[in-house]
Structure formats: structure tokens, C-alpha cells
């Protein structure tokens, strides 16, 4: 098998018939709307059934980790907005927390709460974008418009707060650059007021929709043990009935102050992963509400040295990004630049399971499975 994949890995014509006429190689992507960016999937087909699959990634490789070794610590922060650009705050949060942990800086409680609010808003944005595009991939175009209506409302709040919608650079080393703006509470409450009903609307469109069910039930099944073996995290792992969430396992940024549930699926198929993400939206809503009600007074920035120079040492910090476990492994040599900064990208590791989840299914199901993995190629390739 290794030989043949290596062979098809060469730049080849779009599709060609193998020696054995029963088997066909099909290139899907990199320019394909349902690959969510520039993912190239090389499929081996028997009729329309997938017998083998190989992912060709790296089209967006920018060498972020290398760049980070050559930038000072504050300069690096915005780069982590640009890996997973639909959930920029998770990346930034992970990075600033890693540096803060190594410098043993205690971030003020108010900043921690604001971080939680913004990160959870961002999780909702990411899940809504996922839901909209996933539904389009499967053929339900309307859902996309519903999702973007609420996403827009949230992005407005984010824009009013930090001035940008996607690559927000919301957090700074040591806390927040700004405190909340005067209308923040009112705008957020307005959103929180309507959001649960909106989630019900999405569910009304999809959860018992016959076409949706027949396209997602039993597709891309992965068991809990297989999921652990292949390194799945986030909604994929929870969809396979493993109750695990970093916000509970290793609480950071005051997550242990809030009450929320970890939804799990029973069967580990595409439909369960859909249900898990829908329920996560409700839980995020709960967290935001609690954080907003309990928002403590005080400063939003810790006392930080003018020149950020973490001591010699190393640290690994992980956050629960909307995609899974996003980790940063930071090695410092005591200078103003990191010696090594490694990002554990959830999308990259989750995408690895595509092969396992797709073999035996039809080509159209590969689209559904890619959608349910929820990849962002900016993070896969970094």
C-alpha cells in the first residue's frame, strides 16, 4: 500500500484509471468547495465506494512555528489568530496562557472572565460556521443563512470590542488590552436572549430531517477506543462517547467557576457529532451568561515587565478550542524570543482519522465526514 500511495502522491493528472480497471483514483481538491480550503484528498474507488484514501496537505504551510522563533513574545500573539482563523481567540488564548504560565503571571480575574466570554462567543461563531457549511455540503442551503444571521450578531460584538471580526488579536500577554466597552453588557444580553431560540430553529431544520438523517446516521463511525488511539479530541471524541473536555479536565481561565455539561454522543457517527456541537452551543451560551452575570470588578491587565523575557524553562498549555485540544509547547532560553514554540493543532490530528472514517463509504459520504471533522486548513498546515 505504501508504494501505491507514494506513486499517486506525485503531481498527476486529475483522474486516471489504474491498471486494475475495477479501481480508480480520484483527486478531490485542492480546489473543491467541500474540502473547506485547500485540502486534497486522493481517493481510491471501487465503483463509488472508497477503498483507500490519502490526504495531501501543506498547501497553506507558512512555517508559523519557524516565524515564531524569530519574533519577540508580544509580536507572536497575532500569528495565532491566523492559524485557526474561524476561532482566532482560542489560538491566542492558548499562546498567551503558555507564556503567562511560564512567567508565573497571575491574570486578573476580570480579564479571565472577559477572556472566557470572548472565547465562548468565538466557539459559537466557529460552530455556526461549521454548521452552515456542513449543511451546505450535505445539501441543506437554508441553514447557512440562519447560522450567519447569529454569527453576524456575535461578530458585531467582537468588532465593537477589539476592532476586528476574525483575526481579532483580542488578548495580550498578561490580560486584556481594553476593558469592556459601555454597551457591551446590553448588546451581549440581547444576543443571549434570542440565541437559545435560534438553536432550536437550527434543530428544527435538521435534527429530524429525513435527508439529513439518511446522510449522517451511521456515516464515519469511530468508536471511543479508536478515537483515543488516533488522537481525536473535541467534539469528535465526545461524539464517540468519551466524556472529556479540557475545560473540565484541566480548568484554565476560571472555567471551574462555571457550571456546564459535557455533551456526549452514543454511536460516534456524523449525526452524533452534529448533536454534540449543537448541545455545546447551548452550553457555551450558559457559560457566557454566567460569566457576564458574575463579571468581577478590577483591573484587566496584570503587571507585566516592559520587555517580556520568560525564564529558562518549558511549558505545555492546552485549551479546548472548538476543534479539540489546542496545545502550545513553549521552550524558552531566557531571551526575548522563544527557543521553540510548538502548536499541537487539533485539526491536523483530527484530519488523520478521515481515512479510517471514510473507507467503505461512498464518495458523497467523504464530504459529510470531512464536514463533521470540522477542519480549518490554516491550522492543519500552519
Amino acid at each position, binding site marked *: 500500500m*505504501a508504494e501505491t500511495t507514494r506513486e499517486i502522491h506525485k503531481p498527476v493528472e486529475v483522474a486516471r484509471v489504474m491498471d486494475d480497471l475495477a479501481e480508480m483514483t480520484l483527486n478531490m481538491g485542492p480546489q473543491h468547495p467541500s474540502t473547506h480550503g485547500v485540502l486534497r484528498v486522493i481517493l481510491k474507488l471501487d465503483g463509488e465506494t472508497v477503498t483507500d484514501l490519502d490526504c495531501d496537505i*501543506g498547501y497553506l504551510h507558512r512555517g508559523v512555528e519557524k516565524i515564531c522563533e524569530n519574533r519577540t513574545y508580544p509580536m507572536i500573539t497575532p500569528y495565532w489568530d491566523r492559524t485557526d482563523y474561524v476561532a482566532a481567540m482560542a489560538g491566542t488564548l492558548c499562546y498567551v496562557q503558555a507564556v503567562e*504560565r511560564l512567567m508565573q503571571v497571575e491574570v486578573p480575574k476580570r480579564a479571565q472572565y472577559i477572556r472566557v466570554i470572548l472565547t465562548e462567543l468565538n466557539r459559537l461563531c466557529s460552530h455556526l460556521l461549521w454548521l452552515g457549511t456542513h449543511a451546505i455540503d450535505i445539501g441543506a442551503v437554508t441553514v447557512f443563512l440562519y447560522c450567519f444571521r447569529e454569527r453576524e450578531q456575535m461578530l458585531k460584538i467582537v468588532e465593537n470590542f477589539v476592532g476586528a471580526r476574525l483575526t481579532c488579536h483580542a488578548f495580550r500577554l498578561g490580560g486584556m488590552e481594553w476593558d469592556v466597552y459601555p454597551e457591551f453588557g446590553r448588546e451581549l444580553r440581547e444576543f443571549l436572549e434570542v440565541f437559545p431560540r435560534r438553536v432550536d430553529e437550527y434543530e428544527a431544520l435538521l435534527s429530524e430531517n429525513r435527508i439529513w438523517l439518511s446522510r449522517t446516521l451511521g456515516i464515519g463511525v469511530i468508536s471511543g477506543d479508536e478515537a483515543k488511539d488516533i488522537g481525536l479530541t473535541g467534539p469528535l471524541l465526545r461524539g464517540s462517547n468519551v466524556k472529556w473536555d479540557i475545560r473540565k479536565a484541566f480548568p484554565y481561565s476560571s472555567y471551574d467557576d462555571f457550571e456546564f455539561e459535557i455533551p456526549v454522543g452514543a454511536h460516534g457517527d456524523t449525526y452524533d457529532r452534529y448533536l454534540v456541537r449543537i448541545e455545546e452551543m447551548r452550553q457555551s451560551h450558559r457559560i457566557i451568561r454566567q460569566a457576564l452575570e458574575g463579571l468581577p470588578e478590577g483591573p484587566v491587565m496584570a503587571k507585566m515587565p516592559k520587555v517580556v*523575557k520568560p*525564564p529558562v524553562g518549558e511549558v505545555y498549555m492546552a485549551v479546548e478550542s472548538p476543534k479539540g485540544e489546542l496545545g502550545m*509547547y513553549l521552550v524558552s532560553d*531566557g531571551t*526575548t524570543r522563544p527557543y*521553540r514554540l510548538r502548536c499541537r493543532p487539533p485539526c491536523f490530528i483530527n484530519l*488523520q482519522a478521515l481515512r479510517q472514517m471514510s473507507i467503505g463509504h461512498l464518495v458523497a459520504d467523504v464530504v459529510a465526514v470531512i464536514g463533521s471533522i470540522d477542519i480549518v486548513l490554516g491550522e492543519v498546515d500552519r
Partner: protein
Amino acid sequence: MPPEETKTPPPTPGSSDKPATEPAAKPAPPASSAPAAKPPAKAPAGPTYNDISDDPIVARLKARFGAAIEEAVELLGQQILRVAAEQAPEVLRFLRHDPEARFDFLTDLTAVHYPEKPQPLEIVYHLYSFPRNQRLRVKTGLGEGEAIESAVPLWGTANWLEREAYDLFGVRFEHHPDLRRILLPPDWEGHPLRKEHRLEYQENDWVRRHLEIRDVHPETDLTGKYEMTEFVKENR
């Protein structure tokens, strides 16, 4: 424990080609006069390394593998284990399958390059145990050109992670089912996360070939070597 602290090799501040700390701090003084007093105040502060040899799992490892467990410390509440490269695959197998350790999840696998150490490549495994909700970082050093046994039989996650480490660092993993480049193109030369690989490595032959840049000035340097101008050096 102070002896541990001295034993832990700091990541060789002078090893990279960065002009260590002094020039880097220079841009600050115009902003305020305070920073001059700060570095000495900050230098002693820093996370401490605590010995964790009495941790039950570390104790079992030490009893079984002896000197192969070179170091077991805790830094910032995170457990770090340094293991001799020859024994690393066995130690990992033990950690994976031992009924008390049960590290059933490979969170991450990566490498760090220390060009000036005798073992320049450090492979870092981040393990996690679901039943015990515990993390462990296992590190092992590899000499130049040495290979290490693949961890794919233990954790499926290692497949792509090892391919990435191979791609970006040139680490060879033996018995890996499919060791080829993953992020960079198959015919790329070099391993960009190694320290000798400059950031400004652009005008190389690969780019010229693939972008079909034919009219190259005869004196253009296509090796990727980059000379810093005095201005850049001063302002790094």
C-alpha cells in the same frame, strides 16, 4: 532541589545564532530608564525543578529501567521524564500498557533542535492518561543521523506527527508505515525547523524550479544562505 536545577540543561542560550540577550534588550532603554535595573531582579526568579523520583510510576520505571531514566522532574506542575534513546521505545511501551501508568493517549509528538549539544535532536512525547487525568512529557535525545523506533504501534496518532517531525526536523523513525513528507512538497530539500535553516530562506533552487523563474541573475545565490546586513543585525 538545587542540584536538579543545575543538572537540567538549559536550552543553551548561546546555541542559536541569535546574538544572545544583550543586543535584544537594547531597543527598550529609550522607552524608559528602568529596564537597566530589571534583568538582575528577574534572573533568579523562575520556575523551580522538583525531583519526582518518589512518584509511584517514576519509581516503577526506575526499578525496571534503572539508569535509562536519566531525569525525572516536575516543572510548573508538569512532569518531565528524560529517557536514554536506546530504551525510549521500551519505556513508552511500558507507559502505554502498564496497568498503573495507562498513558493511553498521545497528545503530541514533536522535536526540538539543539545544534550544539552532543545529541542535537530532542524528541518530545506528550502523553496523557484518560483514566488518571494526568499528563507526562517524555523526552529523549538523538544524535545526528540516528533513528528512533516509531511509536505508531503504540498510538495511531503518531503516524502523522512522526511524518511531520521527519518533514520539519529530519528525524528518522524506524518501522514507520509511511514515512514521507507531509507539509512540504515531496521534492523539498532540507528540514526548515532545524536551527541552521534560516528564516529568510527563500530564493532557493526549489522555488526557482517550480515557479519557472528562468531569468536569474548569474550572481544570484540560490543556496538559501542569507547574509544579514549590519542594519538587520543591530535591530534584531
